[in-house]
């Protein structure tokens, strides 16, 4: 099953993840002013939220990664060596 989590500390409360999610996984915690995962089981792993999140605060696990044919693998491998 796909896992999805928001790093709460990093959420700025923009609610873009709520706007972009096709399966309505997220909800807004109005008191904290931060987004939260409400329906994790509905996540289809499209990663739209992860790409759009300004903080990079949303992480997925166990999703099917599609390798874009136009991605430069040589460069992509370099980022694995970032401290």
């Amino acid at each position: 099953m796909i896992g999805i989590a928001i790093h709460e500390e990093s959420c700025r409360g923009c609610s873009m993840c709520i706007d972009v999610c096709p399966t309505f996984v997220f909800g807004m915690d109005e008191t904290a002013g931060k987004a939260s995962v409400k329906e994790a089981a509905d996540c289809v792993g499209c990663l739209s939220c992860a790409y759009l999140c300004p903080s990079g605060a949303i992480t997925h696990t166990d999703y099917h990664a599609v390798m874009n044919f136009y991605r430069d693998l040589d460069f992509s491998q370099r980022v694995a060596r970032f401290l």
Partner: protein
Amino acid sequence: MSAKIAINTEWLSVCGGCHVGIVDLHEKILDVLGAAEIRHCPVLTDIKGYPEADVGIITGAIRNEHDRHAAEAMRKACKLVIGLGTCAVYGGLPGAGMVHTREEIFDTVYLHNRTTKTDIIPSDGVSPLEKMVTPLDEVIDVDLYLPGCPPASSFIFDGLLALVEGKTPRTSDESVCGRCRRKMTKTDVDRIKQTYEDLPDPDICFLSQGYICLGSVTLDRCLSPCTRMGVTCTGCAGPTLQVLTEPNRDIRTEVGERMARLTKIEKDTVIRAIERGAKTHYAYAMATKMIGGKPTFLINQWIAETETVGAEGGAA
């Protein structure tokens, strides 16, 4: 612990701030020095050659022949090489020199400088400039990268200590927004503001207020001091990993999309504004092929358009 780990450091085309970043460890540097021995360091040791070492820390880009020689000598002398700082990893601010020829740079700096009177281009005892500015990993193999301008000392400490203790350092893919404390709210702002206009609200995100801030497209290796202090992010630690690795992602399109969702400003308006200020907005990372090599990165065209409009008296 057994024998101390030997460390060489070297600076190439760089302001020197990354070495200050290392010194910024303050008393924590004692933890590192307890387990490490610094052999070659331009600000600490008086040594001309490159003694053998376990770890080599190189800051700065390759701008002249001396830089290239020093980088190659460091690679031969060190078992593991770390590119420290944005200049070493992406070319950094010296990399912005790639939008001008050597002749233009010499002319502006030495022949027609507006603030000093000089008429000679120095050539005696000065290492000749190379044609291009090159990030470190296009000249030598780099084992680890730590971008930042300079990287916040906590990242340097974490990285160095991990090496000393043989552990995996904590890394994060989060952007500068992750540690910013401003609240991102949707607003009715309908035009882009320059940073000198009005007084920004200290608690609301710059993008929400119409100011172009690169926090959301910049990797957090700084702990977000600028945005916390009321200054928009200029992207000094270089782009986030998704901007670097995904061909369809870019600084201007990502900022444009987010700003359009937060305000009433059109995405294309933001994109055009960033293109007009491309020398500033792409200053830190344009020399790396990861950004400069993108087929959609047309900085020379953007500059030509902007400067033509400016010359005709239009709004730049």
